[in-house]
């Protein structure tokens, strides 16, 4: 008898199967994840968690009988029945068998727990920052293997064949390993030789040569060389995202919720996908302030509205901390579209001449009242931005009124664009 302790075996034996399963039901999972986003608390979104999947696409069908037809069944525990009794069927089932409620085509609403990582992966699957162009060799976060000469040890897949054979040849020459031709010539000589004495001498010579050949191998483990790799730091693009949010009195709770959801998605997306993205949170009423994320998402504030204050703050921060020649600069602004009349001109000037030329991409989200029409808007800011947009600057504007529009709009703004094509405004 053997006792084997398997507890220390590598864990996650079923991981591969789990991943295959996830891949298989990817679309379903994606839909379920997005659906779950609409109903959940902002904070819960970060924690991943249980989702419920319908089971199409993962059915494992088999040839089996349905429940129709006559059936016989033996059951235990008879207390009152005698032969010939008729037991009325339970209501609700038309003529089915009374005892098979657990059977059948059930299984819909297969509950599935995604880890936080899996959840975010699915969630952020096809998003990216557009036009990440300026790459500077500053941060050494990523490394990639680079060729770095040869070594005497390594993986068989890295054998340097050329170098190995060259070394082998050098050794063979240095140790005077007899050549094949040499031996063949000697053999011919022996065949042709008629004189016994010299023939014996030749044979002795041949013998010593063949022995030498055997002693000095064609390729010796000593000769083997492997290609060596060293990890070289890779340049990483530096990027900064400015989040500008209007928290003035005109924003209703609903609008704030929409705006916060939008930024939360943005925050999640950036912090998960890009290691080197700075995020600057600016909130503004009639004056702007830079805040930390906690205050940004959960701190209360109220007041009038001056959009230019936020843009001015952004400009100041860029000037102070983020040199536009080195940094990829992104902006995302959320507002209800209200702005003081006197401020319109200044805002337009700032955005057109100061901010947009330095930005890779600037997204504006206008949040509206629940039930509002998200297709068009006549708010001052919208009109102003629409005017600027036509000038082929990297500006996108969208309007959102309902919670379930947040993700599509977000996805629309940041989905992967192929190749070099620029962001379409």
């Amino acid at each position: 008898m053997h006792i084997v302790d398997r507890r220390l075996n590598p864990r996650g034996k079923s991981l591969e199967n789990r991943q295959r399963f996830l891949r298989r039901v990817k679309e379903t999972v994606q839909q379920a994840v997005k659906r779950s986003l609409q109903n959940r608390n902002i904070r819960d979104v970060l924690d991943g968690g249980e989702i419920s999947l319908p089971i199409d696409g993962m059915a494992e069908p088999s040839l089996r009988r349905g429940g129709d037809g006559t059936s016989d069944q033996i059951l235990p525990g008879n207390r009152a029945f005698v032969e010939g009794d008729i037991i009325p069927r339970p209501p609700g089932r038309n003529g089915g068998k009374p005892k098979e409620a657990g059977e059948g085509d059930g299984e819909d609403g297969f509950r599935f727990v995604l880890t936080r990582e899996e959840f975010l992966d699915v969630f952020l699957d096809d998003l990216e920052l557009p036009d990440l162009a300026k790459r500077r060799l500053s941060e050494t976060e990523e490394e990639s293997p680079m060729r770095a000469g040869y070594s005497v040890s390594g993986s068989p897949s890295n054998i340097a064949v050329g170098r190995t054979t060259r070394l082998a040849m050098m050794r063979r020459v240095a140790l005077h390993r007899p050549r094949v031709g040499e031996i063949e010539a000697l053999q011919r000589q022996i065949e042709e030789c008629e004189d016994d004495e010299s023939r014996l001498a030749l044979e002795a010579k041949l013998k010593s040569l063949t022995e030498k050949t055997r002693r000095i191998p064609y390729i010796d483990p000593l000769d083997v060389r492997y290609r060596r790799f060293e990890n070289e730091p890779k340049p990483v693009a530096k990027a900064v995202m400015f989040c500008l949010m209007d928290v003035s009195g005109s924003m209703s709770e609903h609008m704030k919720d929409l705006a916060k959801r939008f930024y939360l998605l943005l925050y999640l997306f950036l912090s998960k996908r890009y290691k080197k993205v700075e995020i600057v949170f600016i909130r503004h009423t009639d004056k702007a302030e830079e805040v930390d994320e906690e205050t940004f998402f959960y701190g209360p504030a109220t007041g009038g509205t001056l959009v230019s204050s936020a843009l001015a703050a952004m400009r100041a921060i860029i000037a102070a901390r983020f040199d536009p020649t080195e940094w990829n600069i992104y902006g995302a602004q959320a507002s209800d579209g209200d702005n003081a009349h006197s401020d319109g001109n200044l805002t337009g000037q700032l955005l057109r001449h100061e901010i947009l030329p330095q930005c890779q991409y600037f997204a504006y989200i206008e949040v509206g009242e629940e039930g509002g029409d998200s297709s068009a808007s006549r708010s001052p800011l919208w009109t102003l931005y629409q005017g600027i947009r036509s000038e082929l600057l990297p500006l996108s504007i969208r309007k959102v009124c309902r919670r379930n529009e947040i993700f599509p709009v977000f996805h629309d703004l940041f989905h992967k664009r192929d190749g070099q094509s620029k962001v379409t405004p």
Partner: protein
Amino acid sequence: MTTTVRPKDRLLFEGADWDFATLQRIHDACEEIALGELGLDVYPNQIEVITSEQMLDAYSSTGMPLFYRHWSFGKHFAHHEAFYRRGMRDLAYEIVINSSPCISYLMEENTATMQTLVTAHAAFGHNHFFKNNYLFKLWTDAKGILDYLDFAKGYITRCEERYGEAAVERTLDAAHALMSHGVHRYAGKTTVDLRQEEKRQQERRAHEEQMFNDLWRTVPVGRAKKGGDSGLEKRRAALGLPQDNILYFLEKSAPRLQPWQREILRIVRHVAQYFHPQRQTKVMNEGTATFVHYQIMNRLHERGQISDGNFLEFLKSHANVVFQPGYDDRRFSGFNPYALGFAMMQDIERIVTKPTEEDRAWFPDIAGRGDAMAILRGIWADYRDESFISQFLSPNLIRQLRLFHLYDDPEQTEGVLVSAIHNERGYLRIRRQLSREYDIGWTDPAIDIVDVDLAGDRRLLLQHIIMNGCHLQEADTTLVVQHLADLWGYDVLLQEIDSSNTVAREYAASPRKIVQ
């Protein structure tokens, strides 16, 4: 000077803790009783201690320690895990594998008493059954299974590398859908030798490579010969039709399958065949193991190797295992194979040792023969659930379990008829009916491949013989027939034939175009 052994020193363990030396002692003590007193004959044992996560792993890959990769196992894992994490389901105490050496998995959370119970149950009860039951002897190859699974896993991985994961997955999906109809039900072939399988596969491939000659491609062929109007019978005989093993037929005759696809069908078929005996012996297998652990635990207790406290712990879990709620109990979910099996084994023991007049009349062969273990060992070797129940379910046990027979005819609007109860008139009918419920020839739909016109449109024709007016489950069947058509490569038609020999329903499918 002699020392008297105090009773305490005889104990295998104290309390709940155990270590590997304890496991060894437990195993040796169980072995002494199992081989010496019960006369069991077992494969060598291998006991493996695993964690609950590993137990979940094992659950999801049909209990085997290694298995090829497929998404469905991931699905099962997620399913079990969700239930387990929410505390809705306990894990099994053990899993035992029909292999030689016989591998038993013990959970690390088990107490020492539980480890004893599980060792007796799995390493001796199941083990003996695997080694001696005729179905397992005929259809499974305990020595070869692990090597074969290793080969299968490697082979499928290589196929994935060569032909792409998607293509392999499609083939496996289709094969799994047909798995229930991928077994030989009747012997008549030589016994399987899984070790040979791997070699044969390699030889076939080497042979093909050797015989490859590109010139054959260039040899001009004349117009295909007119398919002679050989009669239907001749055509069927040539293909070995009718054939109920669908996977086997596809593997041998499907015209458009690649060699590697045939090999995958073969692997799935072999796995299905390996599990086939287990499906037919649930009650007997669990009954045997439960009976054996009950005997061993009692003997250990009598010999003073298990303390009274630990024995009570055992009795509690034993009672849980063999609990059979009545039909109207909320916990009722069909017959508990442990309960039914154990009750029947005990009943047989009673009949053999202390028969009543009734027993003598019903079981003249075994009543009062005296040596219960010899009789039981014979039964364990020669029966499966269906024949076991139809032979040995005694009136006494029918009364004890208060069995009754319901006949449900949807035409009958008034309700369900109680057609037999536990009385003189009912015993035989109840026994016959219960044994039928365990006869997979009766419970599985009978589907045969009946015809294919290889010279014509190559449509594959299958027939399901409807019994008791019970049709195939519609949604599933549509999917399976589609899978079947994908494998076959041409149209497939499945007809359901009712008792008046007319076609009641038809399922037709054409192969899907595969987008690579």
